[in-house]
């Protein structure tokens, strides 16, 4: 197993986010170390995706800061963060619908990874194969079903050559067999040294990969630590797991 360095690669400190009077995040502190896989769970509306938006640069926090590899990146945009190595998938897949699958990945390799010519093409093909969608390469993305769009979402993030990968419910809707493939792929990426931050409701899949678990509720982190400790936390059980806990454990 890869040794996890104790220095955080990405840290969010005291993050607040409100839309008018409605506060979504309340002083959230979050960090992930290099090569670590961190799971985030919580009920719907807990603020998980908003936290992803803040880490990825799509959402500006109302207060707090984001530090990446020792640098304050709070005011940088999503493209700058992608160039620095932070990639994300979206909860609802957002492919570029006027392009084919391969063109989506090539665009990500050219702009996110900063590659050109053959290098960009090679990298896009690699991402295509990693996500097991090579057979869909020339298909217009508008013709893809939900599952293939999810695979594309993952492949497109990988094509940007990330160091930190934010996965937002990437396992939702997959069959058991597809989940096994996904777990194998994410484990492989982790072994390659990627930092994985994964929001997921399919707990048994999440628990096979992660080193640490964070539970959020109503815009706050209510527990974090070793997955088994978090699962047994009474607050977590009350807020999120309920009867699901017995099934998972």
């Amino acid at each position: 197993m890869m040794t996890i360095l104790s220095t955080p690669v990405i840290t969010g400190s005291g993050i607040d986010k409100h839309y008018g009077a409605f506060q979504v995040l309340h002083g959230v502190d979050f960090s992930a170390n290099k090569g670590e896989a961190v799971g985030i769970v919580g009920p719907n509306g807990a603020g998980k995706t908003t936290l992803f938006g803040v880490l990825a640069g799509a959402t500006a926090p109302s207060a707090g800061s984001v530090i990446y590899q020792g640098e304050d990146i709070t005011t940088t945009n999503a493209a700058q963060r992608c160039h620095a190595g932070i990639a994300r998938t979206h909860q609802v897949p957002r492919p570029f619908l006027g392009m084919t699958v391969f063109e989506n990945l090539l665009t990500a390799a050219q702009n996110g990874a900063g590659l050109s010519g053959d290098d960009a093409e090679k990298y896009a093909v690699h991402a295509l194969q990693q996500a097991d969608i090579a057979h869909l390469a020339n298909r217009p993305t508008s013709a893809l079903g939900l599952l293939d769009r999810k695979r594309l979402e993952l492949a497109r993030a990988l094509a940007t050559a990330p160091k930190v990968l934010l996965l937002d419910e990437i396992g939702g809707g997959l069959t058991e067999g597809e989940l096994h493939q996904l777990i194998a792929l994410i484990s492989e990426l982790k072994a390659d040294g990627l930092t994985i931050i994964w929001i997921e409701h399919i707990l048994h899949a999440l628990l096979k990969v992660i080193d640490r678990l964070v539970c959020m509720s109503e815009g706050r982190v209510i527990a974090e630590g070793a997955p088994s400790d978090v699962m047994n936390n009474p607050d977590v059980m009350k807020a999120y797991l309920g009867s699901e806990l017995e099934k998972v454990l």
Partner: protein
Amino acid sequence: MKQFVQVNSAAFTTERWYQVGRPALLMGALLLVVLATVPFWSSGLVVDKLTTLFVYILLAVMWNLLAGYAGLVSVGQQAFFGLGAYFALRLVEMGMSPYPAFFVGALGCAVIALFISVFALRFKDGEFAIAMWVTAEVIRILVMFDPIVQGETGTSLLVMNQYEPEFRRNSNFWFGLVAMAGMLGLVLWLINSRIGAAAQAIRDDEEAANSVGIRVMRVKQIIFVVAAFGCALAGAIWLASSVTFQPRTYFGVQWTVFMLFMVLVGGLRTFEGPIIGAIAFFLLQEFLGDYGVWYLSGLGVVAILFALYVPNGIWGELQQRRGLHLLPTGVRLKLMKKD
């Protein structure tokens, strides 16, 4: 600096637009050569009409680049059409020869477009469209303050009268042909380049585009400036042909309406569509233009019918129904099968 994992991809090849579209490119080049000889064997009327067609094609292709490929629907492109003519007029007034002035004036418009883009591109969708219309009106009013324009009265590019009518007509034709061919080539390259792909990604989903590292503002600015430059060239050619310059005519919103009509009829988001749309518009104008208000009503009816029943335009429909692809854009991947 990013660290890349070892890539052991299967053998593959890619097929790009210039490989797939080689026959069409050769045919297009041949057509341009034939067109260049038209003044030697055809009547002055045909030369004039074709010059007008070149202007329409330029305008349609520019609007399609902006709205079709980058999702920037503008109703203010007349700003650059008018400015292109105005700058040419001003440069000639300052002593520059007309034809270099047309080109330099268009470059000046591109610079102005870069400044306009800083605020205009902060708007989205309908707001952007209206912001561009307002911008065009503001520019028209500013131009009318210029003493040589004399407000609504306008002025003329009298220096063109120093040339023999035939020389002037042919020069306008060749200038228009070169401008159109050059811009068609530039747009074809651009939409197939990394910038074009990024523009299409922004059009499809701006936030997702940003999340894969696309510098949204920079890409939009490039497309915006190129489209402005093309419209400015069209304005200068129009001035060269008509000689007179009246702000209300050159900065009129009808120019953008014509662009929209040509692109809708020909086929939005295709390279060939706007060219076909421009030819259709030109023919409609030739055969029905004398019917005045009925002609304008007819244009409206045609636009509505296309929007309702042929939303992909003539070329888009041919592509879908007949699988016709003269100049396919994008990249096709061919993975080699394992033995």
